[in-house]
C-alpha cells in the first residue's frame, strides 16, 4: 500500500519540476556575460547593474504596478457589489448581464484588444493609462465576480438575516457579516486579477498610448529585438520579490497564531 500513496506525490513533484525548469533557466541566464542569449559567456552581474540604470524599464514596472493595482481594485469593487447584488435580485436582465460580463474571459484576448482599440477611438478617449485601466478592469471583473458568486452560493444566509432582524442596516450587515465571509474569495480573485493584469501583453499593446509602457509590453518588444539578459535579470528580481512576499506573509500569519 505504501507505493500507492507515494505515486501521486511523485507525480506532483515531477510536474512541478518541469514547470519550474524554464524559470530556473531564466534565472541562470541572467548571469550570462554574453549579450547573445544562445552563448554562455561566463558569470557576470553586469545585467543587474544595467537594470538598475534602466529608467525606461523602471518606469514600465511602475506603470504596470499602478495599472494592476488600480484595475484590480476597481474590478474588486464592481465585481463584488455586482455578485452580492445579483444573488439577491430576481430580474430578467440578470442572466443576460451576467453572461455578457463574463464574455471577456470567454473570448480570445486578441479580439478584446482589437475591439477596445476600435471602440475607444470611436469614443475619442485619449490612449494611455485611462484606456489601459478601463480595458484591464473589464477583463478582471469576471474573475472576481465568479469567485465571489461561487462563495455566496455556498454561504449560510441565516447569519446576515439574523443581523438584519436584530436591527442592523443592510449596509452595516454587509460590512459586518457578508464582507468578512466572502473576503477570501475577493482576495483570491484580486490576486488572480492582479496577476492577469500585471502580465497582460496582447490587450495592453492595443490600448496603450505614447507615454505609458507597461512591463510586459517592454519585455515583448525587447524580446522581439533580441532578449538581453537584462530581461532575465528583471524576471529574477520580480521572482525573488514574490517569493519573499509570500514567505513574509506566511511568517506574519504564523506569528498572529
Amino acid at each position, binding site marked *: 500500500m505504501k507505493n500507492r500513496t507515494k505515486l501521486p506525490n511523485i507525480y506532483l513533484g515531477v510536474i512541478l519540476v518541469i514547470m519550474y525548469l524554464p524559470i530556473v533557466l531564466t534565472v541562470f541566464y541572467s548571469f550570462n556575460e554574453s549579450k547573445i542569449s544562445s552563448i554562455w559567456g561566463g558569470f557576470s552581474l553586469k545585467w543587474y547593474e544595467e537594470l538598475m540604470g534602466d529608467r525606461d524599464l523602471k518606469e514600465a514596472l511602475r506603470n504596470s504596478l499602478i495599472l494592476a493595482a488600480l484595475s484590480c481594485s476597481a474590478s474588486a469593487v464592481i465585481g463584488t*457589489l455586482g455578485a452580492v447584488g445579483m444573488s439577491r435580485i430576481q430580474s430578467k436582465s440578470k442572466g443576460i448581464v451576467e453572461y455578457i460580463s463574463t464574455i471577456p474571459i470567454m473570448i480570445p484576448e486578441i479580439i478584446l484588444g482589437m475591439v477596445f482599440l476600435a471602440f475607444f477611438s470611436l469614443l475619442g478617449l485619449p490612449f494611455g493609462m485611462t484606456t489601459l485601466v478601463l480595458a484591464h478592469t473589464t477583463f478582471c471583473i469576471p474573475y472576481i465576480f465568479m469567485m465571489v458568486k461561487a462563495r455566496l452560493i455556498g454561504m449560510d444566509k441565516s447569519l446576515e438575516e439574523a443581523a438584519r432582524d436584530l436591527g442592523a442596516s443592510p449596509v452595516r450587515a454587509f460590512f459586518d457579516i457578508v464582507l468578512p465571509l466572502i473576503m477570501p474569495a475577493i482576495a483570491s480573485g484580486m490576486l488572480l486579477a492582479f496577476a492577469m493584469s500585471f502580465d497582460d501583453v496582447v490587450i495592453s499593446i492595443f490600448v496603450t498610448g505614447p507615454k505609458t509602457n507597461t512591463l510586459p509590453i517592454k519585455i515583448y518588444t525587447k524580446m522581439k529585438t533580441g532578449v538581453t539578459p537584462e530581461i532575465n535579470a528583471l524576471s529574477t528580481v520580480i521572482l525573488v520579490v514574490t517569493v519573499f512576499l509570500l514567505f513574509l506573509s506566511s511568517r506574519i500569519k504564523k506569528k498572529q497564531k
Partner: protein
Amino acid sequence: MKKHSKIWVSVIPLYIFTLIFVAGPLIYMIALSFMTRAEVFGVVGEFTLDNYKKIFEPIYLKTFAESLKLAFTSTILIILLGYPYGYFMAKLSSVWKKRMMALLMIPFWTSALIRLYGWIIIFRSNGVLDSVLMGLGITKDPLKLLYTYPAVVVGMVYALLPFMILSVYSSAEKMDWSLVEAARDLGASPMKAFLTVTLKLTLPGLLSGVVLTFVPSMGLFFIADILGGNKVVLVGSIIQEQLTKGRNWPFAAALSVVLMIMTSLIIGIYRKVTNTKDLEGLF
C-alpha cells in the same frame, strides 16, 4: 421584500460597465465586420458581406481547422495532466496544500513571455534537451525540436496548465469525500466510485478549467510565433496580421466574430453534454 429594495444599487456599476465596455465594443465589432475597408487606412460605413465571404477561401478555412486542432490537442493534454494534479493536490494535508498553492502561483508572477523563452533555451539545437539526450547517448544529432508543431503544443500546455489545475483543485477541495467513502462502502469499485461520484462532483471545476484553457488556446498567437517560428498559422495570427500589416480591420472583425461564435458554441456543447449550467467556482 422591502429589505431587498435597495440592493439594486449595488448592481448598477456592474450593469453600466458591462453595457458600455463589454456589450458596446462587441456590438461595434459586429458592425465593423459588415463594413468596407477604406483605401489606405480605416473603414467606410458601406455595408458588405465580402469579409465573411473571404473567410470561405480554402486557406482561411484551413486556418480555422488548424486552430481548432491545436486547441483540442492542447486542451486534452491539459486535462490529462492537470486533472490528476488538481485531484491529488486536494488530497494533500492542509500545510502542503498551501505550499503547493504558493508554488503554483509563483510562476504567474514571472512574465509568461519569459517563461516561454525558457523553453527556447531547452528546445533549441544543441540546447539543454539536446545536450542531455546526446550526453546520454539516446540521440546522435540535434533534434531540431524548436519551431515545430510539438514545440507549440508544449508551449500551450505549459502556459495554460495552471488554470486547469487550480480549477480542478478548487472543485475537488470543496468535495465531500464521505460520499466517495459511502460509495465504496456500498461496494463500488474504486474506479466506479471515481466515475460516479468524484468525477461528477469535480465536473464544474473541470468545465471552468476547459473554458480557461480552450478559449485562450484559440488565440494565443504569440506562442505559435515564438515556439513555432511563425510557421504554425492560427486564427489569432491572421487576426493580428490583418489588424497590423494587412490594414484590414473589417476582415479582422469578421474573423473575430466567427472565432467568437465558434468558441461559444463549443463551450455551449460542452455544457450540454456535461449538463453543467453554471461556470461554478472558477478556482
